[in-house]
């Protein structure tokens, strides 16, 4: 005797003509004593009958016409055409694909070059800042290396003339010893051998009165300005130094020695800032 589950499985198989030999006999024996499986069989058959008898709508004629028109159009393109559907993707033309690849590679190369340039510039900035810091610690303005290299030969004469003037000035000023400045003539430090220092005292400054009447004063002033131009220095503290130097010279010229000393002190403070 088979179970109800097995019987129902075989009932379905018999109904679908998928039964094995002896199935029908086993089913019949089971059904005689099993109303549940009989109900299963009856309902299955009835449902199947009714399902098959459900009317199916007719196929619209337009389906074939539309389809065959589409297929005919496709068939005319020949066998070489690839199967394609309404939703299929069209491959890119070969030239366009190569262009896209080339564009991508160029773009990538540009990105790499940009990164490299940024890295080099950043490194250069760091170097320049370091040099500037060193130069400031040394007490002088930042020399422009390229400018010096380009203009060194042509400026030597001017610098030497400044040296001569400076020597003359130093000679006159050295009698005074209370104040020390590396102010206006420190700009000549672009060439270390031209570094000068001064010791200014009221007595020495007083001795300078005659000097500042000398036409060389105008020359010194002009040289200071030209040196500023030479180095293209735009540091505001340096501007103040230059202006203070000029004012000091004018004070000397006017016989205002005390003012000149104060101005030189200011030059000294400003120079320290630089």
């Amino acid at each position, binding site marked *: 005797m088979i179970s109800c589950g097995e019987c129902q499985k075989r009932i379905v198989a018999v*109904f679908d003509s998928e039964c094995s030999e002896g199935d029908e006999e086993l*089913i019949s024996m089971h059904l005689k004593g099993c109303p549940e499986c009989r109900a299963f069989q009856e309902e299955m058959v009835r449902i199947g*009958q009714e399902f098959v008898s*459900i009317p*199916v709508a007719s*196929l619209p004629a337009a389906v074939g016409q*539309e*389809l*065959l028109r589409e297929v005919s159009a496709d068939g005319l393109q020949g066998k070489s055409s690839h199967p394609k559907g309404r939703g299929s993707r069209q491959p890119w033309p070969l030239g366009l694909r190569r262009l896209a690849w080339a564009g991508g590679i160029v773009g990538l190369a540009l990105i790499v070059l940009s990164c490299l340039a940024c890295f080099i510039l950043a490194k250069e900035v760091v170097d320049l800042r370091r040099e500037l810091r060193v130069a400031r610690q040394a007490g002088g303005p930042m020399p422009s290396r390229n400018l010096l290299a380009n203009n060194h030969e042509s400026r030597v004469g001017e610098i030497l003339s400044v040296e001569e003037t400076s020597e003359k000035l130093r000679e006159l000023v050295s009698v005074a010893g209370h104040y020390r400045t590396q102010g206006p003539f420190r700009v000549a430090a672009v060439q270390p051998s031209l570094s000068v220092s001064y010791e200014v005292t009221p007595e020495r400054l007083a001795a300078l009165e005659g000097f500042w009447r000398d036409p060389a004063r105008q020359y010194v002033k002009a040289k200071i300005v030209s040196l500023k131009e030479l180095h293209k220095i735009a540091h505001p503290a340096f501007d103040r130094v230059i202006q203070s130097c000029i004012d000091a010279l004018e004070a000397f010229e006017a016989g205002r020695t005390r003012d000149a000393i104060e101005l030189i002190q200011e030059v000294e403070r400003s120079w320290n800032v630089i």
Partner: protein
Amino acid sequence: MTDYSDEELMGMVGNDDVSAFEKLFHRHKRRVFDFLYRMTWNTEEAKDCTQETFLRLWQARARYSPKAKFTTYLFQIAKNHFLDVRRKQRSRVDLQRLSVDAPEQRFESSVLSSSVYEAAVAKEIRSAISRAVARLPEMHRVVYVLSQGHRMSYSEIAAILGCPVGTVSSRKVEAVKKLRKMLEPLKDELLGKGFRSDKGGSFDKNGQERDR
């Protein structure tokens, strides 16, 4: 060309023979549409699916190799397309769209004549069955429709679905059990009309009682 087998015609279609394709279309359109209609219960959807099925057949003409029956190949395409559509829709069949008229009211025999009552009951039963079939899981529905509606063998259905024959058998049994359960409220009407087998007698595929 009428004497060519399906496989031979498909071979011609592989060589871009549109007339062979047309022949195949006219030969099988009704079965494909019938299958898809019973899967969707919607004329428009079945029409679109039928059209798309044959279009896919045309597009796949170069890949066809006559290893299996042509109808198996064709129904594979139809089934796959149906499942694709369902996957996209991801929604249950809208029962309101069922083509089969689905009267909801029950009929009382006291107010209707006998023949009218039986016709109304039969209509109601069919409507209920179509709704129940639409509620079956898709793979169960495919098995039930192909087996019941198209009388395909389990091995043929297994080839279409790409599964073992045993799976087809178990799905069919499950489908019948689910239908029984869904149609439980109509049990009396279902058993009160037509074929009966109170004695557990044998029956043929159409539910007709065999002579004993």
